C-alpha cells in the first residue's frame, strides 16, 4: 500500500514493552460482556471457509422447527379432548403423526412450489429451444450492455446463477441481458471443477477481485474494485446465499434442483429482488454485517427491562420462538424461547425483511421467513406490526404455528397498550430522534471513529458518522479503512491481536481479544503509545455506558 508510512503488528504479549501490561483491560471488565446469552454466534469470521460449504446445512427432518412442532403434536395428542387434535391424524397412527404434523408449517409451501415446477418444466424446454435459435442476436445485445459505461462504472457487482449458467440475479442491470457473461462465469467455475477436481475461489485482475462460491447448485459471484478482501466478499456472498434460503428454505431449493436441474429459479424468487438489493445496500453502510453482530438502540436499561418484561409477560403463548422489537435497523429488545438463540446473521435477515418491505406499514402482516442458522429446513411465521404512528418501532413475533396469527395479534395489542402506558414507546422514539452519540462524548482527543464489538453478546457499538466522514465519498473511504483493518487482523494467516497502521490521512488501531474486537480510527499524527492509552480510555468509557449501549440480560418466555 503506497500510503503506508510505517506499520507495526504485534501480539499483545510482545507489545507491552512501553505501554505496560497494566494498560490492557482486565478480562472481567470487558465492556458489553455478558454470560447471559441473547444472540449466539458460535462461528467466527475465520471459520468461514469453503470447506464448510458442503457440510453445514443438512436438511434433516430433525430440524429445530420440526422438533418444536413435534413437541406440540405430542402435547396435543396427550390432551383428552378430540377437538384439539383436529389437525393431526388419528391416534392409531401416533408414530406417523409426528412426521406428518411436523410438515404442516413448511411443506404446504414446498408442495406449491413443486407443483409449479412440474407444471413449468414443459414451458422451460420450449423457451430453451427458442433461445438456441437466436444465439447471435442474444450475444450482440449482451455485449453492448456489458460494455456500457453505466454498467462498467459500478463498484461492486453481485450475481447469482444456476449450475447450468442461467442468470438468477444481478445487482446492476437486468439479468436477462447478462446471459453471455454469466455463461462465461459458469464456464470458469465448471472448468476448474472438472479438469482439476478443484474449486475456483477467486481471481484478482488489476484492481478487480472476482470471488466465487458454489452452494446447493447455485453459483454466487462477487466482483469488486472496493476495499473488501476475498474473505470479506465470501462473507457477503454467504449473506446472499442465506437470503435465498430465507425466501425458499434449503429443503425447497434442493428439491427443486433434484427434480429439474434446469429450473428457472427466478420464478419462485420473483418479487424478491428487492430483498437482495436492500441487503447489498445494507452491507455497504452497516458494519454489523461485516462484524456478524448487531447494533442496539441506546436506551436506559430500566426502560429496556420494561420493554422485554412486557413482551415476556404478554406474549407468553405456545409456539412463539422469538419476539423482538426493532427500530431503524437497531435492536431494542429480544425475548426468546428457552434453549433457543438467535444468530446475528439471521437477525440481519430479519432486519433486511423489515427494511425492504414498505407494505408492513399498512397493516398487521403475516409472512413466512426461514432463518438458515436457526433452521434452514423450514419456515417460521412472522407477525409483523408497527407500534407507533410514524412506523418506526416494529414488533416481530416469530412462531412455528401458521395458525397463530390471531393469538399473536392480541399479544401485540396488549404489548402496545402497555408500552404506551409505561412511556416506553415514547422513550424509544426519543432515543431514535436523538442521534446515537457523538465521538466527542467519549472525550478522547484525536479519536475520530470506532467500531467496538462485544463477542460474547454479538453486539457492537459505534458513534455517529460526523465530519469528516459525513459525505458519501468519505463514508465509503472510512468503510474501506475498516475493511482493511478487519482483513489484516483476521485473515493474514495468523489472527493478530493488535495492529497499528499509519496511513496518509488517519492512523488505525485494531485490537482483538477473546472478549472483544475494537477498530479505532485516529488522526494521522497519533503515536502508538497514545493510541493504546486512548483505546484503554475508550474501553473504560464504553464500560461505563454499557448498560445503555448493549443488551446484557437475556429474557425468556
Amino acid at each position: 500500500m503506497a500510503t503506508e508510512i510505517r506499520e507495526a503488528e504485534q501480539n499483545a504479549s510482545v507489545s507491552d514493552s512501553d505501554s505496560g501490561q497494566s494498560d490492557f483491560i482486565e478480562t472481567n471488565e470487558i465492556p458489553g460482556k455478558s454470560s447471559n446469552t441473547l444472540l449466539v454466534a458460535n462461528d467466527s469470521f475465520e471459520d468461514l471457509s469453503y470447506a464448510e460449504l458442503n457440510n453445514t446445512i443438512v436438511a434433516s427432518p430433525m430440524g429445530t422447527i420440526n422438533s418444536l412442532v413435534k413437541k406440540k403434536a405430542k402435547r396435543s395428542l396427550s390432551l383428552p379432548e378430540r377437538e384439539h387434535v383436529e389437525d393431526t391424524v388419528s391416534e392409531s397412527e401416533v408414530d406417523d403423526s409426528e412426521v406428518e404434523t411436523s410438515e404442516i408449517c413448511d411443506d404446504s409451501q414446498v408442495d406449491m412450489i413443486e407443483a409449479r415446477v412440474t407444471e413449468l418444466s414443459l414451458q422451460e424446454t420450449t423457451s430453451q429451444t427458442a433461445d438456441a435459435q437466436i444465439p447471435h442476436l442474444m450475444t450482440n445485445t449482451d455485449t453492448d450492455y456489458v460494455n456500457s459505461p453505466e454498467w462498467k462504472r459500478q463498484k461492486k457487482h453481485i450475481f447469482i446463477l444456476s449450475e447450468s449458467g442461467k442468470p438468477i440475479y444481478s445487482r446492476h442491470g437486468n439479468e436477462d441481458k447478462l446471459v453471455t457473461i454469466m455463461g462465461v462465469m459458469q464456464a470458469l467455475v465448471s472448468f476448474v471443477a472438472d479438469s482439476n477436481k478443484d474449486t475456483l475461489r477467486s481471481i484478482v485482475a488489476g484492481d478487480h477481485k472476482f470471488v466465487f462460491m458454489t452452494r446447493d447448485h447455485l453459483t454466487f459471484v462477487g466482483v469488486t474494485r472496493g476495499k473488501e478482501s476475498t474473505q470479506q466478499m465470501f462473507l457477503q456472498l454467504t449473506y446472499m446465499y442465506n437470503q435465498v434460503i430465507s425466501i425458499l428454505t434449503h429443503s425447497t431449493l434442493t428439491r427443486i434442483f433434484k427434480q429439474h436441474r434446469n429450473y428457472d429459479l427466478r420464478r419462485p424468487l420473483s418479487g424478491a429482488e428487492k430483498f437482495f438489493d436492500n441487503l447489498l445496500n445494507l452491507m455497504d453502510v452497516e458494519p454489523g454485517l461485516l462484524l456478524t453482530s448487531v447494533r442496539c438502540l441506546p436506551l436506559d436499561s430500566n426502560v429496556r427491562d420494561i420493554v422485554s418484561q412486557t413482551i415476556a409477560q404478554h406474549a407468553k403463548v405456545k409456539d412463539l420462538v422469538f419476539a423482538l422489537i426493532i427500530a431503524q435497523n437497531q435492536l431494542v429488545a429480544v425475548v426468546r424461547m428457552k434453549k433457543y438463540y438467535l444468530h446475528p446473521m439471521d437477525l440481519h435477515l430479519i432486519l433486511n425483511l423489515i427494511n425492504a418491505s414498505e407494505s408492513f406499514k399498512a397493516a398487521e402482516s403475516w409472512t413466512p421467513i426461514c432463518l438458515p442458522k436457526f433452521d434452514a429446513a423450514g419456515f417460521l411465521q412472522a407477525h409483523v406490526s408497527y407500534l407507533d404512528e410514524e412506523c418506526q418501532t416494529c414488533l416481530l413475533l416469530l412462531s412455528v404455528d401458521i395458525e397463530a396469527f390471531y393469538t399473536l395479534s392480541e399479544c401485540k395489542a396488549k404489548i402496545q397498550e402497555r408500552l404506551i402506558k409505561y412511556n416506553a414507546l415514547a422513550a424509544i422514539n426519543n432515543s431514535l430522534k436523538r442521534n446515537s452519540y457523538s465521538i466527542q462524548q467519549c472525550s478522547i482527543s484525536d479519536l475520530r471513529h470506532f467500531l467496538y464489538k462485544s463477542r460474547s453478546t454479538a453486539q457492537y457499538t459505534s458513534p455517529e458518522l460526523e465530519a469528516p466522514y459525513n459525505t458519501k465519498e468519505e463514508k465509503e473511504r472510512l468503510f474501506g479503512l475498516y475493511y482493511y483493518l478487519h482483513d489484516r487482523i483476521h485473515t493474514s494467516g495468523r489472527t493478530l491481536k493488535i495492529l497499528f497502521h499509519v496511513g496518509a490521512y488517519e492512523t488505525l488501531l485494531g485490537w482483538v481479544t477473546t472478549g472483544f474486537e475494537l477498530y479505532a480510527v485516529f488522526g494521522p499524527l497519533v503515536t502508538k503509545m497514545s493510541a493504546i492509552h486512548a483505546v484503554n480510555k475508550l474501553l473504560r468509557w464504553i464500560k461505563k455506558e454499557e448498560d445503555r449501549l448493549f443488551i446484557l440480560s437475556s429474557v425468556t418466555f
Partner: protein
Amino acid sequence: MSTKKKADLKVIILGDYNVGKTSLICRYIDGTFRPKDPTVGAAFFLKQWGPHNVAVWDTAGDERYSGLSHFYCRGAGAAILAFDLNSSQTFESLWARFGSILEAANEDCLKVVVGTKMDLLDQSNRDITPEEGKKLARELNEHLDFKKMPHEPYFETSSLTNQNVDEVFQFIFQYCLPLSAEQKKKYGKGSVIDLIENSDEHKSTRRCC
C-alpha cells in the same frame, strides 16, 4: 382463539401480483390512492359493518407466498378475485391459480370477480369482455342463489378514480351480513370505519399508506 377480534365475516382478496389488490382495499378503507409496494405475505384489516366486525385479508400475488393460502382461505365467507382489465393473463390466473386454493374457503363462499385499473382501459380494444367476466363469476358461484343478489358478482373498478370500489365491498357485506334499511340508517356512513379508530386508547394507528 381470539375472542375480542373474532370477526363475523372473513373476506379475502386474491389475484396475480401487481393487479391492484392493495390499492383497492386502501381506496375503500382510507379513501386514498397512493403508489403501493408489493405486499409481503398477507396483511390483515379489520372493518366495521353496522354491528359486525369484518376481517379483510390482503394477500401477496407473488407465487412464493402460496403456502399461506390455506391459512387465509380457511373460513372465508367471501373472496374477491382481482384481475387487471388490461392483462388477459391475470384473468386466466383466476382460473389456473386460485380455483384450487379456494377449496379451503367456506363451502358457500361468495366469489366476486373484480376487474381493476378501469381507468387505463381502452373500451374499444378490450382483451376481456364484461360477458367473459360475468361468465366466470357465474361459474364460480354455481352453488349460490343469484336471486338473492342485486347484481351479478362481477365489477369493473378503478382505485385511481374510485369507480365502483365501494360497490364491491357493499355488495359483499350486504350479501353475507345483510343489514336492514333501518340498521343502515342507524350506523349511517360511519358503518365503514376502522375498528382500531374506535378504541380511544390509540387513535388511527392504521394508515394504509
